[in-house]
């Protein structure tokens, strides 16, 4: 049993940033693809 908690918060932050980027990017891509282009 280690005496101290491992210091690896950077990996957690990286994973949560990746998660947000992936999910928001896909939500945005769906929004843009379903939005009809305006006529020129």
């Amino acid at each position, binding site marked *: 049993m280690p005496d101290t908690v*491992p210091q690896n918060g950077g990996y957690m932050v990286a994973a949560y940033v990746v998660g947000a980027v992936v999910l928001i990017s896909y939500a945005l891509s769906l929004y843009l693809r379903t939005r009809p282009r305006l006529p020129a």
Partner: protein
Amino acid sequence: MRLLRAGRWITAIALLLLAGVYVRALVYTPVERLQGLAQKIYYLHVPAAIWAETAMIIVGIASIFYLFLKDPRLDRFAHASAEVGTVFAVLMLTTGPIWGKPIWGTWWSWDARLTLALFLFLLYVGYLLLRSAVADPASRARFAAVLGICGMVLVPFVHFSVYMFRTLHPMPIVLKPSAPSLPGNMLATWLFSVAVFTLLYVGFVTQRYALSYLREQLEATVGGGDSGMGHA
């Protein structure tokens, strides 16, 4: 279109709730003593993995029914589920190595679970590539349905690989026959995250289904010309 609007609303609500998951997981859920803060990746990685697998099962079931009934709605639904499943598979395969590095000391290991999970992702990519490569809608739907059923057959091997082989990947601590080995506070955060990912899946699939439907309608009216929508 009502379906599209509903999908957008569900997605918007799910994204707001996802912010709630982030706050609950990062601020209000205790830190696991052995793994440290990296253990909190669990609240993203596992719900993403559950929906990467479930989405493929749904693709397979819709595909089986499509082959019998030839209903284009089933093909559209399978396509939508496959695209959304790919997104969750990407999330699973990116958060997994980020968690693995501080805990296992390596980003990746070619063990049964990780390799089969990668294979599931490649099957998703193959499914989407196949759909974009076949022009005839009836052939496209039929070929894709066969691949979708193959994908569904792969899922139990992915899930049970930790029992069948010696792997670096840990066994399930919640989705197992006995009681979950997770403290109440952590379990509540995990269940909240699974519920939000479920809502995200529903919102994404509803929008993706509506997109396919709109595209088919526009192609039918303009005779396959520029529909005013982007490509799939």
